[in-house]
């Protein structure tokens, strides 16, 4: 379980407009590139001082590569990070205000309390 790394992926994609578009268009390729090139970057350190041991689990990689927000919820990804990035990527595909957010919620409708632990 590497919830922290899943959150780090969502966080670093969401804050970069180019990466938002890249992840929308090519999720599997973006996840593969990011895990290989970016996962170990410590955000406040020079690139040479990278972390050496971070990796996704198979289920985390598949959830991110599949744009599967339900699986990410089940894995304990931080729901604010997932929602914010999903709005950036997919709100444009819906005509009515909040339609994307309501569809996002409906796909999670089978989830009940307690929700998965989001502690990292």
């Amino acid at each position, binding site marked *: 379980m590497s919830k922290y790394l899943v959150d*780090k992926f969502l966080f670093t994609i*969401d804050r970069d407009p180019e990466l938002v578009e890249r992840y929308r268009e090519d999720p599997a390729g973006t996840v593969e590139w990011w895990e290989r090139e970016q996962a170990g970057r410590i955000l406040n350190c020079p690139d040479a001082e990278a972390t050496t041991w971070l990796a996704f689990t198979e289920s985390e990689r598949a959830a991110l590569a599949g744009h599967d927000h339900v699986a990410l919820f089940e894995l304990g990804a931080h729901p*604010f990070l997932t*929602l914010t990035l999903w709005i*950036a990527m997919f709100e444009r595909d819906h005509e009515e205000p909040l339609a994307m957010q309501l569809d996002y*919620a409906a796909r999670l409708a089978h989830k009940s309390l307690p929700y998965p632990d989001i502690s990292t």
Partner: protein
Amino acid sequence: MAKLVAILATTHHPFYYRTSRLPAEQAPPFAAEWVRKVAAYRETLTRVRPDVLVMVGSDHFHQLWLDNMPQFLVGKAPFYDANYYNEEREFGLPRLLLMGHEELSAYILREGIDRGFDLAFSNELRVDHSITCPILTVRPDNDLPVVPIYTNIFAPPLPRPERFVALGRTLRELIDSWPSHLRVAAIGTGHLSLELGGPRQFGPHGPDPEFDARAVEWIAKGDIDGCLANVTLESLHEPGNATHGFMDFMLMMGLAGYAEADYADSLDLFHTMEAYFTWYPNGADA
């Protein structure tokens, strides 16, 4: 000594700015009442003529990240740039530059640490909508220096509700004892029941109207003990998965003490309830 002229505790709704600026024919039906309520609330701050604002909010994974996460952080800088790309993108919020008040920041840090809060600090803090929403609603001229105080309501493990109340009490002591002639207002923003990224999000009301009604009563009556008896880190999951932001209201209750709010208002909106409270600890005409 400094005079604490007002304490404001309110929700921060990032959609207000854009909604309030829509032409009438494009505005949703609730917009006019929302704008009226915010204007009335703004007056509760304007009338006390503050010189400096102590502002409590929470970073939404903008500058503060899981590799180095403070529980309570005080900004100490002469200026604070504000709002982020994803807040422009999602909410249409403008970029802002807030003035800081380093002397009061330094006082809160030194005295707060000495009173048992190991406060983190930042000399280069870019604040987000938890700080800028109340600027846009109750001080839109953005003409006063601020001391931003961030709390962690977002990334577990979180401090417990009692700790938020205790920090509020300590901030009250510090402001009351600050050797200054200035008039201070404290403004804190949080949430009532709220769900983000879960099945209960963006419903016709907040996810738990019953919790919201109880919360409004606790705050309006200054019922700190009743609130603490009913609210725990664990219980806050039930009203909605982002309801831990209510602890910023509890911090402001600690700051206000066991006092009924002098002004209390709310507005039931889709997704979440808006709420507006003001206390005048030295009287409305102080």
